[in-house]
């Protein structure tokens, strides 16, 4: 079956491309839902890609209806336009972000598509076109295949178990032990150390969690411990602080903090071990 290349008036195609591009830009800038923005992203690949492809390979110069060439080449060129846009923005010192990228791609896409249509619009050619029924069959096959493969992939992912070995971590929440400075305290004065225990794979019980402290390897019995569930953390965390009297002997000492959490149902959880910090005691 032979038909004209542009059964729709070129001006209508131009308007359609422009509307699609502007709508894609708007979807990105307005942070539309991911599904909508995925379609918008596809538009922002295809419009500049087809524009560039048609500029380089006009229909009347090549196998104009060759889907094997034009469709994938348009995608490759569209991706190259993305790459060029990102590098161009970087070169001009513009921060890469949704608005800057979408604006650049929309602008470039409209320019390329406009130029391509201007160069090709005056030369309608007769080409072989597929019957409407064949196109519908192809579209149905593509949609069905995409749906089946998506479902199969989701099922396959669901089959693969995710390792869920529970574990806990303990860390000081004060950043002094992480830095160059050594905490300093006067001899015999109260010292407060803050920490957090995070449990992954189980909920921890503050009431059942035990805390021990040793200075220079000697256990300290005179401890005040505060603990509370840390609701700010998405893991099951316990924030706590331990207060103890600083040693009376001036000099550098080593403080080891042991936290042994227990699950809310009373079962044991993997112990995180201990954390340690030096303490400089002044007279």
């Amino acid at each position, binding site marked *: 079956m032979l038909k004209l290349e542009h059964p729709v008036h070129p001006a209508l195609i131009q308007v359609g491309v422009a509307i699609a591009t502007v709508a894609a830009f708007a979807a990105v800038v307005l942070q*539309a*839902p*991911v599904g909508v*923005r*995925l379609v918008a*992203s596809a538009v922002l690949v295809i419009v500049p890609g087809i524009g*560039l*492809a048609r*500029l*380089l390979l*006009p229909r009347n*110069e*090549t196998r104009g209806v060759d*889907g*094997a060439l034009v469709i*994938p080449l348009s995608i*490759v*060129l569209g*991706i*190259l336009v*993305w*790459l060029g846009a*990102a*590098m161009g923005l*970087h070169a001009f010192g513009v921060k*890469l*972000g949704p608005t800057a*990228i*979408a604006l650049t*791609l929309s602008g470039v896409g409209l320019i390329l598509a406009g130029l391509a249509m201007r160069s090709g619009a005056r030369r309608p050619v007769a080409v072989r076109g597929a019957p409407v029924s064949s196109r519908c069959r192809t579209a149905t*096959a593509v949609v069905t*295949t995409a749906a*089946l*493969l998506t*479902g*199969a*992939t989701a099922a*396959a*992912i*669901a*089959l*693969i*178990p995710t*390792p869920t*070995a529970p*574990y*806990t*971590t*303990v*860390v000081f929440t004060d*950043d002094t*032990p*992480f830095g160059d400075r050594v905490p300093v305290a006067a001899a015999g004065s109260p010292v407060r150390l803050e920490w957090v225990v*995070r449990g992954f794979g189980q909920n921890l019980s503050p009431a059942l969690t035990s805390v021990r402290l040793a200075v220079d390897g000697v256990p300290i019995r005179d401890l005040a411990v505060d603990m509370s569930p840390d609701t700010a953390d998405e*893991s099951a965390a316990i924030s706590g602080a331990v207060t103890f009297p600083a040693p009376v002997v001036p000099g550098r000492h080593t403080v080891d903090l042991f936290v042994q959490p227990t699950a809310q149902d009373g079962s044991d959880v*993997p112990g*995180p*071990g201990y*954390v*340690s910090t030096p303490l400089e005691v002044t007279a």
Partner: protein
Amino acid sequence: MTATLDDRAPAPRRDEEAPSTTEVRSRNPLRRWLFGWPSVTVGAALGTVVVGLSYRLSTLGYSAELYYVTFWAGMLLACAPAAARLIAADTSRSARLGMILMLGVVTAMPKYLRNPFDPSYHDEYAHWREAVDVTSTGHLFQPNTVIPIVEYFPGTSALTSSAHSLSGLSLWSSGVLVVLVMHVVGLFAMYLLGEEVLGSARAGAVAALVYAINPSAIYFDTQYAYESIAINFFLWTIALTALAAGASSTRSRVGMLVAAVLSAAGCVVTHHLTTIFLIVALSVVVVTATVRARFVGGPSRARHRTGFVVEPDGRHARPIYPWWITLASTVAIAVAWVTSVARPTLEYLSPYLGTSISQLDNMTRKSGEGRRALLAANVEPDWERWLTAAAPVSLFFVCVVALMMIRQRRVVLNSATWGLMLFGGAYFLSLPFILAPSGAEGARRSWGFTYVGVALIVALVVVYWPAKRPQWLGRSVRTPLTAALMLILLVGNVGGGLNDPYRFPGPFRWGTDTNSASAETRSIAEQLGAMVGRAGVVSDAYTALQLAAYGGLVMAAPSPGFPAWDLVQSGEDPTPELAKMLVTSRYDYLVVDVRMSEEDPYNGHNFGGGDPLLGHKTPKANLERLDHVPWARRVMSSEHLRVYRLDLADIAARED
């Protein structure tokens, strides 16, 4: 039969022989059902689920034999119907294109299912972190601690960050989507190349099929990394140049060449090694054409004024100058990029080739010393190992058959096709390097490129070999032989690609990039990163990946000149020299995973090739002493991981 594969007498396109799917369908209802679109789609869907099942079995610790068999059952279910239609002589061109699309998706599927939500391969950690840093800062060229050279090749991070910004998908999903799209369109490039240089849609389809099952395609070149994207620019550059050479008008030739050069530019800014292979491939083509023009007897030596290569009958053949233009442009862009932006590239790449060649030389002199056991440390079933060994042997025989066909003038090739096939011959040259410890990686990496030529050779033989030969018991065995070849290539190539822990998820296994990763390490990385920012950290090769990726930490790269591994691989305090290096470079933290002292590392090392305890686990005492030395204090801890704050100033002071 004589097929002429230059443009003096182009072979008929197979779509002309099978003009419509309707005609094919009505011919044989059984074939229509077996190889029709529904069976291909259902096969692909079922195959996907079965591959997922194999991953379930491997994760749960079932025997390797079981999950390998399951995996291949799934892959065959997914690939065989599409492959059959691609190879069949009576498939229409449009159906072949649909099958290539399907093949592109199903060959990307095993890698996608391997780790659908997070990075897992070594290079994936590097690229994911690069994309995170580019997105968070809004600027390209961010320093990368896992693979420092990544900083200078921003193609992957630019595309990922753009896709993320536009689509709203997570950075990981954005990157994976870009790789998938490029993988699929890359197969179309291979199809177009095969169709153009071998003069048949069927040849293009077979070339795309063979390329889709090359040793790198199914896992390595579908991972989220720069080569996975750049290799498709490589394919498009070559395909567009071939199309330009065969173009019927100057306008379309120029258009194709501009597109080829743009694609080459995309390749240059995305991956160094792919750019080198692109330059080599283009060089082989132009050198082959030049040599043929000069030395092939008769009128072919003559040159037309326009620069067209003139073939023996004196008529214009396909010009070779488009190949020269693409080569010159690629070299110019690559030189400009490396000299102005990516200067460290030469320093980064230069050690590899020299080291592997010298190791090969040593191996020939000293038997048994430094020899790498082929396929060692592997749980692959024997049958997959045999097929892995059979793949290059089969290809060798295919090459012999191709040479016979050319010698008997069953086919006549033009210079560009000769050049591409010679480039494919480098596949066989790379095989000895698989035995050299540092050459094995390079050899494997080359196959994704040289398979362009290999695929053309296989397509030539499959399509142009006489239909009735060879015969056995009076019947042609061509179809079973073709099916057997494809089976050997599919299974053998995947088996010869990446090792078991890269291919299959599994229980925790110390000493692999993939299965040594754990949620526990990720949690420590994130907490440490949140606490100290981009601080310098010393750690083993496996923990370092997650620390860098999830914590944004700057990882030390131990080497003989900077033996940071001595902090744990030696039972003694660091030397003043090492302490000074660590202090001045601000490597303030040490992270150890105690599992390094519980089992030997799968990869044979804990700190790379220079590890002083190569092949051995770290002595437990070396880790326990860290809790008692004055220069380290534990500031973060979990069941298996300890984070130490280093205080090496006193030891470093002794150096002065």
